[in-house]
């Protein structure tokens, strides 16, 4: 437990100090997205990496949070800080209700059902033009502000978003190292044995589905207020897949892995910009290589790589 606390403090220090390294600039904006994607990946990881239930529709919950915040603040003038938790609760309740029938399904069937859910939500964003602005999007969403401070610069947004991200990291780490976290992992490893031990697998799966929707919605609200503009394209099937990739590349069942996966997949396209037309090819090849050579994800693969390299260096020469 002490080790978990140290890990978290080290991670927090890294997050706090990162802006000093980059001195503002374009990359700050990207790091804001790393924060948002980390939240989303953690939410999905609780469901996929811990409870072992897949979702291909999580971009939908992200979008619902973003649109609820966007519409209620931009079009109806409600207070953003009030709307954010209300949106999260509403999305959580929706996920809870949908979760009961949907999570009866397993494997491929669950993937299909959540895929359908994501597509339905995406279509709603596109078609309810009078509310969402349709495909051309919704603009004029206010920035968040506390007192006289408005979060309208990259550096301010960075600290705003990462405050939320750090809180979610801490709560998720606590949760996964608890009675509930163990029950989730138990369902993953053997659902029938978990049930025999008295774990209400059905209810717990729905609960974690709702929880991960709440986290996604929160990330969506923060996204809307940071961007001040939302459009359906950000919440489509592609983004659900990208989230899934973050979780898998980072490491299933690891909270810090979710951060690594989110950071890599958010930063990589920016870093590959120099490669111009070849960026997508390199991006794809890198992802394939990582899945092949680090099946446990970055969080397990990188330390192993370091170990291998140091062992090679430590070996005496055969000259």
């Amino acid at each position, binding site marked *: 437990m002490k080790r978990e606390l140290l890990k978290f403090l080290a991670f927090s220090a890294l997050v706090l100090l990162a802006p000093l390294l980059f001195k503002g600039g374009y990359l700050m904006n990207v790091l804001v997205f790393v924060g948002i994607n980390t939240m989303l990946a953690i939410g999905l990881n609780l469901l996929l990496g811990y409870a072992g239930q897949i979702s291909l529709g999580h971009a939908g919950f992200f979008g619902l949070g973003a649109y609820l915040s966007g519409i209620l603040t931009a079009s109806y003038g409600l207070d953003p800080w009030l709307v954010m938790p209300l949106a999260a609760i509403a999305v959580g309740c929706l996920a809870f209700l949908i979760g009961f029938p949907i999570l009866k399904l397993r494997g491929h069937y669950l993937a299909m059902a959540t895929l359908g859910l994501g597509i339905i939500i995406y279509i709603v964003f596109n078609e309810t033009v009078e509310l969402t602005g349709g495909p051309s999007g919704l603009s004029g969403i206010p920035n968040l502000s506390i007192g006289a401070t408005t979060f309208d610069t990259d550096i301010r947004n960075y600290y705003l978003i990462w405050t939320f991200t750090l809180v979610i990291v801490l709560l998720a780490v606590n949760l996964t190292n*608890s*009675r509930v976290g163990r029950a989730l*992992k138990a369902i993953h490893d*053997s659902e029938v*044995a978990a049930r*025999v031990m008295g774990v209400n697998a059905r209810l717990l799966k729905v609960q974690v589905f709702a929880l991960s929707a709440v986290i996604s919605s929160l990330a969506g609200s923060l996204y809307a207020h940071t961007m001040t503009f939302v459009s359906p394209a950000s919440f489509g099937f592609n983004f659900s897949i990208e989230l899934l990739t973050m979780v898998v590349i980072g490491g299933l069942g690891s909270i810090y892995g979710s951060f690594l996966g989110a950071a890599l997949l958010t930063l990589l396209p920016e870093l590959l910009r120099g490669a111009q037309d070849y960026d997508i090819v390199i991006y794809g090849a890198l992802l394939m290589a990582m899945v092949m050579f680090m099946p446990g994800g970055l969080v397990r693969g990188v330390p192993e790589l370091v170990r291998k390299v140091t062992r090679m260096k430590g070996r005496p020469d055969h000259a």
Partner: protein
Amino acid sequence: MLEVSAITQVFGGVTALDDVSFCAAKGAITGVIGPNGAGKTTLFNIITGIYRQTSGRVTLEGKDISGLPPERLARRGLVRTFQNIELFGGMSVLENVMVGLHTKSSSGVLSCALKMPWSIAEERRIRTEAMKWLEFTAIADLADVTAGNLPFGKGRLLEIARALAVGPAIILMDEPAAGLNSRETLALARLIQAIREMGITVVLVEHDMELVMDICDRIVVLNLGKKLAEGTPREIQENPEVIAAYLGEG
């Protein structure tokens, strides 16, 4: 007392169990035996809420428990182990037993995430009690090992420790000696007797005749989905119908 009355199970057109009734007396060890395909595992799956029977009733201490799901049965004090051990392979041995204490703890999602003081206290209590069950089954030295890496025999013991952690009034074991060597089987026999000593009712399906005859107080014999005989080990050994069924006569 566990009472199984007139259980019939039909899968498609096949009658897997036909009007099977028996009682497992409180605090006794009851063995269910029979040739392959006799319906033993089906019967277990019905009693433990994995399958829903076509007809018939199961009662525990006089209360109807037919059709209750396994998680509800655990809270009523009925727990089981599996023929092909079902461990939580990705978790440590200790954590496996801590899951067994799920019903004896109550921290929810919110208090766990916020690490409330009572959750921390509860966590500590669970850990201590889980350790106690590992000591009881003599695998405490393996507490930090990943359960998936355990040798088969130790895995069996872990499954029993985990089941005991639930605090059962009755434990059903599906072929607990399968895959064990003779030394391990002997240790298992002692362990099962120690479990009975604690006042826990034991029902076991088993192929190892020596073990069954050695430790069971009463034996129920199934053959082709029907109850063939019931009695003490001695009566069963002398029963001509049982002998015929096992030698494959008729």
